[in-house]
């Protein structure tokens, strides 16, 4: 968080209404998102209690485990969840486009992909746990489960991990996304409360948001008072209807909030790079679908040495790209960098479009641009620059002093002796340049897992999900 965001929070606190910290939407929003609100039994690691889910705001499915300590009921519940989620997920697999790739075979990429939206980070974590607790189950043996259960587990695991992948929109946490676009007048800790955050964005703060009687927690944890006074007695009564109704009261308010959050995000114009990131999501999704179709084993309990390093590299690359793209897509995000002097914006007051460097054959076109800016520029001469206005353009800072910045354009102005029309900004044009650039070289290869070196414990034994995984007793 930067001073810019802090200022927005102060403003929000003062005006009693959240302030925008983004001018465009930085996440993809599906036309048919699957809203998923899971609840868990307090004190248990991953004992599902209920879930409200669906793609139709008018018609959510409510699935309940009326006796959460009963293993069979839990798996029955997981099977019910699968009945809703799997058709939704599989619905996206068949419409694909063929993607050509340099020096490797083309592959099929889904035209669209599923999108799971949960209320908060807790929801993401619990989804991951549900995945972990179901993906290893067997359909035969001691504690058999319906076929759909382990499959659901693998998809939940996949989506849960994807949620940690910078810039991915396959699984979103509502509070996270809202917080990325609005600054409330409360602390980021309190922003984790969906009702409170939404109140800040829409009507202004209210203490009701913290009253579990008015706004039940958005899960996965339930309100202890509710557990003690409503749920426990209902369970003892042995009446399934009563447990179900009790849990409905805890889920319905959040269900409404979730769609309100979606509407708020949908109202924002989509950022320029969102489609590109969603394309990667679609590719990843298709990859996973193929993976499963080919009968690969469920995801391992934890990454091996090579897998971990590979994932880290991917995630760092994605994080860097995500940061740059957000700044390029959104002046308000770029402003954070202008504040720290890593970017500057201003008016072009002079250009030398036909400036060249070097002599004879090595002679190169290097158009000069002088920009007047109010921003504090903290970039040394020679810094490589990029600009949101001309994304293919490369430039280099020549000098910066007294609010005047001189830079030379080094690429993206065409092959010719003179710069291609429009390549060099006109005098009077407002432009923004930044040292933030999205040109990362790929990361070098890793050894094959079976070639893991001695420094990292040597080759791991082939991972086969064993009976332990499958028979792990649930209590």
């Amino acid at each position, binding site marked *: 968080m930067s001073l810019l965001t802090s200022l927005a929070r102060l403003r929000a606190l003062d005006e009693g209404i959240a302030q925008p910290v983004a001018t465009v939407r930085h996440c993809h929003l599906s036309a048919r998102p699957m809203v998923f609100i899971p609840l868990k039994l307090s004190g248990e690691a991953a004992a599902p209690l209920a879930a409200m889910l669906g793609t139709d705001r008018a018609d959510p499915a409510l699935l309940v485990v009326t006796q959460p300590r009963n293993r069979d009921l839990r798996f029955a519940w997981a099977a019910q969840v699968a009945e809703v989620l799997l058709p939704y997920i599989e619905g996206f697999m068949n419409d694909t486009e063929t993607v050509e790739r340099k020096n490797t075979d083309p592959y099929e990429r889904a035209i669209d992909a599923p999108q799971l939206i949960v209320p908060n980070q807790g929801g993401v974590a619990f989804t991951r746990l549900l995945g972990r607790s179901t993906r290893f189950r067997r359909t035969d043996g001691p504690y058999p489960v319906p076929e759909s259960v382990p499959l659901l587990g693998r998809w939940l695991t996949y989506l849960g991990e994807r949620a940690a992948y910078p810039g991915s929109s396959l699984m979103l946490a509502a509070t996270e996304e809202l917080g990325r676009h609005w600054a409330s007048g409360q602390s980021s800790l309190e922003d984790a409360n969906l009702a409170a955050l939404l109140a800040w964005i829409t009507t202004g703060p209210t203490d009701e948001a913290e009253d*579990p*009687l008015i706004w039940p927690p958005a899960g996965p944890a339930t309100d202890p*008072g*509710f557990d*003690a*006074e*409503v749920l426990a*007695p*209902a369970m*003892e*009564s*042995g*009446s399934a*209807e*009563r447990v179900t*109704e009790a849990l409905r*009261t805890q889920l319905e308010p959040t269900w409404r909030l979730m769609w309100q959050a979606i509407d708020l995000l949908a109202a924002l114009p989509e950022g320029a790079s969102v489609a590109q990131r969603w394309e990667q999501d679609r590719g990843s999704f298709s990859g996973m679908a193929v993976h499963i179709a080919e009968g690969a084993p469920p995801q391992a309990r934890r990454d091996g040495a090579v897998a971990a390093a590979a994932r880290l590299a991917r995630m760092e690359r994605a994080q860097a790209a995500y940061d740059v793209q957000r700044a390029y897509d959104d002046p308000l995000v770029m402003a954070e960098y202008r504040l720290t002097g890593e970017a500057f914006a201003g008016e072009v007051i002079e250009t030398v479009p036909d400036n060249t460097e070097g002599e004879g054959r090595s002679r190169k076109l290097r158009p000069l641009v002088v920009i007047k800016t109010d921003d504090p520029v903290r970039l040394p001469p020679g810094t490589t620059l990029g600009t949101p206005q001309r994304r293919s353009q490369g430039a280099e800072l020549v000098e910066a002093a007294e609010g005047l910045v001189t830079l030379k354009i080094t690429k993206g102005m065409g092959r010719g002796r003179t710069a291609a029309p429009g390549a060099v900004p006109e005098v009077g044009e407002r432009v923004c340049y930044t040292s933030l650039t999205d040109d990362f070289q790929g990361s070098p290869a890793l050894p094959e897992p079976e070639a893991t070196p001695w420094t990292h414990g040597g080759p791991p034994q082939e991972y086969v999900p064993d*009976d*332990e995984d499958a*028979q792990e007793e649930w209590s």
Partner: protein
Amino acid sequence: MSDRLDDLERRIDELRAGVRKAMRVRDGATARVLRAELRSAERAWDALVSGRPPQAKEEPQPQKAALVTVREQVHQGLRLLGAAAQPRLIVAVSDAFFGGTIRSSQLTSLRRDEERSFRSSPFGRPYYLCAALTDRLSPARGLLTLSTWPLERRVVGPLSPRVDFLTCAIATATAIEERDSDDERALRLLVRMARNIPGATDGTLGPPDPGRVAAAARAELLVHAERDTRDRAELAERATAQLGDAARLFGAATLSTIKKENAK
């Protein structure tokens, strides 16, 4: 009907809110009153939904229980185990071998009833379910024994908890072997015990071989036997010397309990 239901639901919501508010400020009194109303409202609601007339929840009374009393089932369990045991273990055994129907909760009052009955007519019954005695000769919490056992078996020295566990494991294993039972519950009990005895399992997850479990338990038992026997003998001696009949069966009151007694 449906609007009756709506009224009930509205009422229930109000009452729940009331109770939770009261609890938040720890106003127990108000909470209790509201809770009572709430329960009746909820029962009425259940009745409406399920079409049953409202009634207090009654315990399911399985006919077996009629044949064998709780007391007798515990007796069976303990006889099989042959050592002081906790209710949960006794229940598990009775469940696994005698199709028992008891629940741990039913055993809590048992010992007091036994003591009362003994005091009213000493030795009036062939056997009593009674306490294990601590090194202070006070009743050991949550351990049941049989009056028909020698004192040595009913006192617990420092090593006795482990020794008794091993004894119980051997008994369970043997029982399974004799009946060559493949009863799921029996096997699960054996698995639970086996994984806490060195060498009792062959590492695989399948049901352990009862013979192997018994052997492993005996092996460890050997390590503790001598010292435990010594400790117990010494305790038993003290108990015989210091305690009257009742106390010998149900344990001497600790200072604190005596205090409580006097306070009454």
